[in-house]
């Protein structure tokens, strides 16, 4: 019996109604006073995460790495970066999390390794090297011309010349991240071994980074190829065979009809991020128009029963604008990235609070919409207290600064000298750690943190949000985003006002004639629903979540 399951009831679909929390280990809490966050530090903060109501922690890559891409350039798949601790620290962390009924998944980069990885160093040393074929080599750099460059700000091409190897090698990301060659069965088998290593330590699953790019083929854009899906299905089969109740979460930033391919027929990845809807939530907010959200959800195919979306507002990367039209991208830059420093690649590198001008109403509304949608929410560390960002830091570091625990030195993140910290904490008057920190917000009943805690609790009390159907409504007012969620006996009506002005809207709820809307936070009953359109009025950025209940139960 796998020990990972000791503290949980068997539930292969646990991820469908879970709240996830993304942690940048380096930035969370420093357990050994060396200026960098580590696994012991994260372990120390499990009480806080348990209070917040988190069901699953997602760790950003914690493997040995030269850190030229935040750890997504892995140099050893079977160890922990010494800055973060040891494999034993990892095992102890997972065990401690499990005892609090918190699960743990970690990033796993399947597509590429760091060029520092011994495999690549071996591969490039000679054309006869046994590892040569583990990577993708060519004498010319004109292969796969239809594959787009992803890091447009830094990479001129997907091919880079290696003088030692005497050939070009293929990389969809930075030139120091050569792609692994999945045509080679040795690579396929090795990656499965990697997965098993961490699963045996008790991990509950993986976020599979950059999966669309595993295979490449001439004459294609080298994304989402059929053999990529085949391999992922093989991974799923192996995991299912020996490790019950685990989750594979695909990072596939694609249009909806392409993302759903990663679920297969319920035999591939369990989860995938709902990338398409995320920028449209921000668009809808600025435009005060629910249409972009309705449209993308309409275009989103339904999932197999045993699969789930991962919903998010922000994460460790830039707010990606790859999957929007050019006009929409221009609009988003104009509205959300007025300072050109904020633009990176095809996105905007800002945290949630600064994106919303630190508007409390806006932050609440966006969370309400996020939590009302079908999927499992994924929160980004620090966004629960409204942390800010630092656009003057390079790459995406601006959104990866140390977590603010208290108003003390270094924001309570570390007892090391300020100069030792891996990145400076925010110190400005609006977002600095003296103003924005966990301790102060815990003590302030009206804080964002306390609000979000109640919100998470409410969502968890009602499995309908994770497990229910989604039925859009058509309010008379385009500024209102309204839909119905249904599961077993529960019917929930979620209505949100995107405008910064008061609004009124009528909803056709004739189907629910006779039921009474009961507001879910205060349990206040609203007038019963009739055959005629139901009128609701909203304050600026207001929203209601109603349970539709029988009149009789008073």
């Amino acid at each position, binding site marked *: 019996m796998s020990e990972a399951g000791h503290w949980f*009831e068997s539930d292969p679909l646990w991820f469908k109604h879970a709240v996830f929390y993304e942690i940048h280990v380096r930035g969370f809490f420093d357990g050994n006073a060396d200026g960098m966050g580590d696994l012991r530090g994260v372990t120390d903060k499990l009480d806080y995460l348990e*209070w917040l109501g988190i069901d699953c922690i997602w760790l950003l890559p914690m493997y040995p790495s030269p850190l030229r891409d935040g750890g997504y350039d892995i140099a050893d798949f079977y160890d922990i970066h010494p800055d973060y601790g040891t494999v034993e620290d990892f095992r102890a962390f997972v065990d401690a999390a499990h*005892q609090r009924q918190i699960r743990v998944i970690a990033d796993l980069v399947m597509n590429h390794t760091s060029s520092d990885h011994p495999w690549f160093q071996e591969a490039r040393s000679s054309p006869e090297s046994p590892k040569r074929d583990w990577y993708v080599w060519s004498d010319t750099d004109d292969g796969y011309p239809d594959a787009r460059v992803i890091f447009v700000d830094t990479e001129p091409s997907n091919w880079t010349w290696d003088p030692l190897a005497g050939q070009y090698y293929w990389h969809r990301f930075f030139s120091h991240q050569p792609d692994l060659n999945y045509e080679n069965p040795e690579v396929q088998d090795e990656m499965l071994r990697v997965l098993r290593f961490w699963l045996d330590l008790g991990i509950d699953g993986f976020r599979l980074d950059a999966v669309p790019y595993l295979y490449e083929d001439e004459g294609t854009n080298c994304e989402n190829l059929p053999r990529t899906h085949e391999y992922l299905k093989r991974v799923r089969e192996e995991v299912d065979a020996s490790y019950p109740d685990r989750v594979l979460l695909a990072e596939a930033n694609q249009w909806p009809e392409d993302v759903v391919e990663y679920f297969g027929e319920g035999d591939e990845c369990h989860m995938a991020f709902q990338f398409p809807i995320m920028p449209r939530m921000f668009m809808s907010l600025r435009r005060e128009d629910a249409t972009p959200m309705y449209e993308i959800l309409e275009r989103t195919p339904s999932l197999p029963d045993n699969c789930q979306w991962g919903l998010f507002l922000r994460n460790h990367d830039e707010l990606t604008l790859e999957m929007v039209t050019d006009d929409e991208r221009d609009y988003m830059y104009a509205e959300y990235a007025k300072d050109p420093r904020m633009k990176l690649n095809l996105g905007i590198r800002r945290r949630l609070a600064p994106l919303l001008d630190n508007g409390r109403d806006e932050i609440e509304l966006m969370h309400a919409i996020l939590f009302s949608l079908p999927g499992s929410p994924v929160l980004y560390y620090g966004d629960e207290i409204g942390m800010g960002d630092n656009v003057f830091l390079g790459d995406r570091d601006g959104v990866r600064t140390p977590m603010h625990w*208290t108003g003390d030195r270094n924001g309570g993140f570390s007892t090391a000298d300020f100069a030792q910290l891996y990145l400076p904490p925010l110190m400005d008057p609006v977002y600095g750690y003296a103003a924005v920190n966990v301790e102060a917000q815990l003590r302030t009943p009206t804080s964002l943190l306390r609000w979000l805690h109640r919100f998470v609790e409410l969502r968890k009390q009602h*499995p309908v949000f994770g497990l229910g159907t989604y039925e859009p409504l058509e309010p008379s007012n385009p500024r209102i985003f309204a839909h119905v969620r249904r599961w077993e006996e*529960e019917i929930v009506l979620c209505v949100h006002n995107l405008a910064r002005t008061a609004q009124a809207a009528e909803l056709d709820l004739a189907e629910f004639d006779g039921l009474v809307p009961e507001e879910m936070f205060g349990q206040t009953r609203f007038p019963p629903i009739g055959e005629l359109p139901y009128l609701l009025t909203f304050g600026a950025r207001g929203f209601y979540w109603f349970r539709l209940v029988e009149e009789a139960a008073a």
Partner: protein
Amino acid sequence: MTSVRELVVALPEEELREFVLAQRWYGSKSDEVASVRAVDAFPLREEGEPLVAVAVVEVRFQSGTHDLYNVPVGLRRGAGGFASVDGWAAFDALEDEQLVLDLVGLIGAQATLEHEGGSLQFGVVDGVVAAGPVRAMGAEQSNTSVVLDETLVLKLYRKLEAGVNPELELLRFLTERDFPAIASLQGWAVHVGQPLDATLAILQDFVPVRDDGWALALKDLEAGGDGFVGLVRRLGEVTGAMHSVLASDAADPAFAPEEPSGEALALIVARIDEEIEQVFNSLPDEPALEPIAGRGDDLRGRLQEIGQSGSLGRLIRHHGDYHLGQVLWTENEDWVVLDFEGEPARPLRERRHKRSPLRDVAGMLRSFSYAASASELEYGVEPPPGWEGQVRSEFLAGYLAKVDPALVPADPSLERRLRLFELEKALYELHYELGHRPDWVRVPVAGILQLLDEPA
């Protein structure tokens, strides 16, 4: 021939529901139940008669959440029982003396019974002899306890929760260290595998009792109140010693004392603050509540005062539900502490948390208030003047004399932390009494008032 597992899982829902919802140990609310069914069964006897299995009964609620219950079931051919399936009648296995002895026998034999998807595992501390007579132990609420030959108690946990029951952990820890003031652990029964790992039951010594602390306190008050004071100092000492032992193993991660994090105190304050908000938002309009009606914000303000930064001491494994009803005065003229399951109605992971030991102290201090009020409420006897104050200070003196000083903060933090946890307890009591014993509401109300109006 259908297996015992198949038979149990096929028990008709109507009859099973009626049976379960009527049991004393059934702990959830009846009005939101959507379904009751046996979702799994762990076989104990698969041949002969009666067939026996541990039924895993799922009670599912309207919202879609559920609870799991531990229901050992015997099946006999014919009619009767609380339900029937396929010509077999189902009955509660713990009502059958021979089945109880068989269960204890499995513990003594350290048996392992495998089934598809998992196994039942029985363990023993030194050795046990399963002998009758067997009698039910009265007044059980969330569990079912059975006394064997006035020497052993089999305590069956009714709620099934994934992991290890804190009582098994704590009793094993204390028994291994020869802590005298407990009913020592003698054995256990657990399930490992699908659908969950869980502690099913423990076996412990039966302790011959003179009185529990509650009865002693009330008798004392009735008699004019001076005998109990002497016993209470000893209770404080036993409590201090218990905490010291529980905190004594830095090498065991489940028991090693911990330094609280920077936000630990703020987390406690946040939890209590939310509790105040919830309780005061839905406070009914009753005369007994009049003294505190509308004073929710005052209370939250007071909470901020007593929850100010300062030391929290260390966090350790502790009793979690400490009050006069949990301590027995034995025939050997000393105290024994019972019931290490932790705070009722809290999920298992919370009950296993390390917390400040002062929570246990606060629990006992509140209990003294309860005794003083009960004396008036139930027996019309007013406590002698200063009784409560005296009992409090004697208990604390005994406690501080024996507890490892590294575990608790010094004054003024000590006083403030005690007030904090007493407030937490009084709110819990208010919530409980409002739902169960409206007449008793005045007791936590008095406690809350005192905390409100006391000078800082």
